[in-house]
């Protein structure tokens, strides 16, 4: 089962649309880590609204995705963990260990926008705007 990944400005949005096997989860991790580089994304939203179960492996893969893309300069937000899943995860003793979460897609986007504004205010001009890489500009001369 492929997970569609949408590029939305400086962000990537991955919407998990059904239950995923371990192989699907591992594929998603590879895809996202690669695409964050290809699209020079600053943020990544993984929407798990349609996921039936988040067990230890799924939870660990989400953490891995957040940490790996974090090493590549993108912040990950997990959105759409519904109440039943949250309860099951706590009973099972699972944790997302510092990975940002938001209620839904809208809140997730708002979170990333706040982060982007804060980063820009703290270090203006540190990174070029997404989509315009310095190398591409130079090649244009």
């Amino acid at each position, binding site marked *: 089962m492929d997970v569609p990944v949408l590029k939305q400005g400086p962000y990537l949005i991955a919407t998990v649309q059904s*239950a*995923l*096997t*371990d*192989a699907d989860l591992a594929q998603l991790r590879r895809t996202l880590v690669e695409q964050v580089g290809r699209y020079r994304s600053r943020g990544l939203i993984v929407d798990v609204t349609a996921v*039936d*179960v*988040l*067990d*230890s*492996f799924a939870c*660990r893969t989400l953490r891995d995705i957040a940490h790996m893309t974090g090493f590549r300069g993108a912040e990950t937000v997990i959105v759409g963990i519904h*109440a*039943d*899943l949250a*309860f*099951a*995860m706590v*009973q*099972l*003793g*699972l944790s997302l260990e510092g990975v940002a979460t938001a209620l839904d897609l809208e809140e997730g986007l708002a979170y990333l926008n706040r982060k982007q504004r804060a980063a820009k205010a703290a270090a203006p001009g540190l990174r070029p705007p997404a989509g315009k890489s310095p190398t591409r500009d130079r090649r244009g001369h």
Partner: protein
Amino acid sequence: MAISEHIPIKADTDVLAARQKGRALGLQAGFASIDITLLATAISELARNILLYAREGEIELRLLHEGGRRGVMVVASDQGPGIADIERALQDGFSTSGGLGLGLPGVKRLMDSFEIRSLPGQGTVVTAVKWELR
């Protein structure tokens, strides 16, 4: 009338199949949606343990009727290496496979009853039941 299903666990797709069958059985037993999620999560974790530690095994799911109450029994069995120190395996944070299988204490909390039998070299049988809420 006993409804029982045996799901062989040999690959990651079987983990998915087992928890989806568990979900269907929970629905049949009249479980609330939260309890179906707890049951499916427990089944997923037990099936994962089979793959991880024994490579293959079986999940049996059975619909129970007892005193007008319905429940789902999960029997996860394998002929893997077994667990030498069961008491330790039931402590939070214990895992022998690099931190992947939090497993057993969590599964115990997800279900209403939980029993484990294991002999080193002979395998492991976990029996757990979830009852409908009354």
